[in-house]
C-alpha cells in the first residue's frame, strides 16, 4: 500500500471512530446511570444496583405518568388509525370530486401546522372549552395532528391491494362492509400495523402538547413528568431521572425494532417530524 493509501485509510478509520464516539457517548449515560448507586451526570462504570429502580417505583407520580402515557397514546393511536384507515380506503377507491386537491392539501397541512405554530390557538381553544387537563381531549388533538400524514401513507398501502379482490367479493354477494372487513383490511394489515406503531411512537414522544394542555401533575404523561422531575426544587432528581428515562425510552426502541424486523423500515419523507 502506498503512503497515500495508508493516509486515506487512517483518516477514514479515525473519522468513523470519532463518529462512533460522537453518537455513542451521550447514549452511554442511559445505560450506566440507572444502575449507579451514586448517580451523577458523568459517565462511570456503575455498581449495578437496583436501588434507583426501587425508589422510582415508589415515586408518587412515576408509574402513574407511564399509565397516563399509555392512555393518551392509546386514544391518539386508535383514533388516528381507525379514522385514517376509513378515510384512506374511501379516498383510494372512490373518485370524489376534488380528491387529488384534497390529498395535496392534507400533505401541506401536516407540514405547515406544526405543534409550535398552532400552540397558541390550541391552548386558547382548550382553555376556553375548559378541557385543560383532559387526557381524551389532548389525545384527540394529537390525533388531529397525525391524521393527514397517516391518511397519506395508508392510502398508499390500500392502493396496492388489487381491485380484482374487491370486485370478486362483490360479485359473490359481499356488501361494502363485508368487502372491507373480509378482504381489504386483512390484506392491508402490514400498512395498518405500521401506522399503529408510528402513531404510538409519535404520541409517546410528544412533549409540547401534553406540556401545554396537561398542567396537573397527576394527569401528566411520562414525557412531561420527566421534565417536571428536573424542576422539583431546582436540582435534578438523579436517582429517578435516569431510571425513568430508560423506562420511558424502552417501549419506543422495542416497537421500532419490532416493526423494522417484521415489515422493514419503510422510509417516508416526513414520517417522523
Amino acid at each position, binding site marked *: 500500500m502506498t503512503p497515500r493509501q495508508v493516509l486515506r485509510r487512517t483518516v477514514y478509520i479515525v473519522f468513523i471512530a470519532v463518529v462512533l464516539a460522537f453518537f455513542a457517548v451521550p447514549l452511554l449515560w*442511559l445505560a450506566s446511570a440507572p444502575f449507579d448507586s451514586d448517580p451523577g451526570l458523568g459517565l462511570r462504570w456503575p455498581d449495578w444496583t437496583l436501588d434507583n429502580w426501587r425508589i422510582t417505583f415508589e415515586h408518587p407520580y412515576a408509574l402513574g405518568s407511564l399509565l397516563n402515557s399509555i392512555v393518551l397514546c392509546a386514544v391518539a393511536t386508535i383514533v388516528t388509525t381507525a379514522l385514517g384507515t*376509513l378515510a384512506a380506503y374511501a379516498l383510494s*377507491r*372512490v373518485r370524489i370530486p376534488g380528491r387529488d386537491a384534497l390529498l395535496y392539501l392534507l400533505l401541506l397541512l401536516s*407540514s405547515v401546522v406544526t405543534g409550535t405554530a398552532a400552540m397558541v390557538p390550541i391552548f386558547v381553544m382548550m382553555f376556553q372549552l375548559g378541557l385543560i387537563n383532559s387526557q381524551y381531549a389532548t389525545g384527540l388533538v394529537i390525533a388531529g395532528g397525525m391524521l393527514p400524514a397517516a391518511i397519506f401513507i395508508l392510502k398508499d398501502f390500500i392502493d396496492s391491494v388489487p381491485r380484482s379482490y374487491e370486485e370478486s367479493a362483490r360479485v359473490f354477494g359481499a356488501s361494502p362492509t363485508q368487502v372491507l372487513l373480509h378482504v381489504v383490511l386483512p390484506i392491508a394489515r402490514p400498512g395498518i400495523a405500521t401506522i399503529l406503531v408510528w402513531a404510538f411512537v409519535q404520541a409517546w414522544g410528544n*412533549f409540547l402538547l401534553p406540556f401545554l394542555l396537561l398542567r396537573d401533575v397527576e394527569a401528566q404523561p411520562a414525557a412531561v413528568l420527566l421534565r417536571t422531575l428536573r424542576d422539583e426544587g431546582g436540582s435534578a432528581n438523579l436517582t429517578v431521572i435516569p431510571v425513568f428515562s430508560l423506562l420511558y425510552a424502552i417501549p419506543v426502541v422495542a416497537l421500532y425494532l419490532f416493526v423494522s424486523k417484521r415489515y422493514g423500515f419503510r422510509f417516508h419523507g416526513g414520517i417522523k417530524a
Partner: protein
Amino acid sequence: MARDTSGLGTARAVGFIAPALLLIGVFLVFPALWTIYIGLTDYTLTGTASIAPSFIGVDNFLNALDDALFGNALWLTLVFVMGSAVIGQNLLGFTLAWLLRSARPTVRRVVEGLVLLSWILPSVVVAYLWIAVLDRDGGTLNALLGTSGTAWLVEYPMAALIIFNTWRGTAFSMMLYSSALAAVPPSQLETARTVGASGWQTVRDVVFPHIRGHVLTNTLLISLWTANDFTPFLLTAGGPNHESETLPIFIYQQAIASGELGYSAAISFLLLVVNLVVALVYLLLLRKRS
C-alpha cells in the same frame, strides 16, 4: 382509473372521510385560521384583556417589528437552522451515507444503528443525555476535553444547541442520501474511478448532478422541522437571558409565561406563513421531480 371498484358509492365514501376531516378541521385548519383572528386582538391570559379582549388590528405585528426580543428570536432561529440543519445534518448525513457505502457490513450496521437510535429516542430523554454530557461539573465533555468548569449550556448555548440538533437529526439525512446514492448508476461511478478521479471529484462531477434534487428537498424539509423544533426549550429554556431563545421558545414564553396571547398568536401566524411558503416550494419541487 379509480372507479368505484368496491361499490362504496359516493354517499358512503363521504361518510368514511368525514370523521377524519372533522378532526383535521377542528385541530389543524381551524387553529391555523383562528390564530389570525387572535393575532388581531390584545387577548391576554390574565387581566382585563383576558375577559374582554379588544380588536387592535395590526398593532401586534407592528409591535413585533420593534420588539428586540422578536428580532433576537428570528436571528437565533436562522442561526440554529443554518448551523444544525442546512450545514450540520446535511453534511454529516451525506458524509456518512457516502463513506458507509463501502464499509464492512458490521461497521455499517453499528454506525447506522447508533445514529438511528439517536433519532428515535424521545426528545425529553435525548435532552437529558446532552444535559449530562454538557454539565459543568460532572459532564463527559469536560472530562474528555479537560475543560472542567465550563458550563457549556450557559456559556455557549447556541453552539451547544447546534451540536445537539446535528446529533439528533442526522439519521434522516443519512438514510435519505443512502437511498439516493444507491440510485446513482454504478457504471458512472466506476468510470470516474478508472479515469482516476478522487473521491471529492467523483462526488462533485458524478454524484451531485444525480442527487441535486434530493439535496434541495431534504434541506427544505429538515429546515422546516428545525425551525419549528421546541426541543431546545428542554435544554436551555431559551436562556441564559434570551441567548438561545429561538422562535418556538419565544412564542411559548410570550404566550404562557407572559400571557400575551394576542401578541404570540400574531407571531405564530408569521411562522405559519413561513412554513407555508417552504412547504409549497417543497411540494412543487417534489412534483416537478416525479
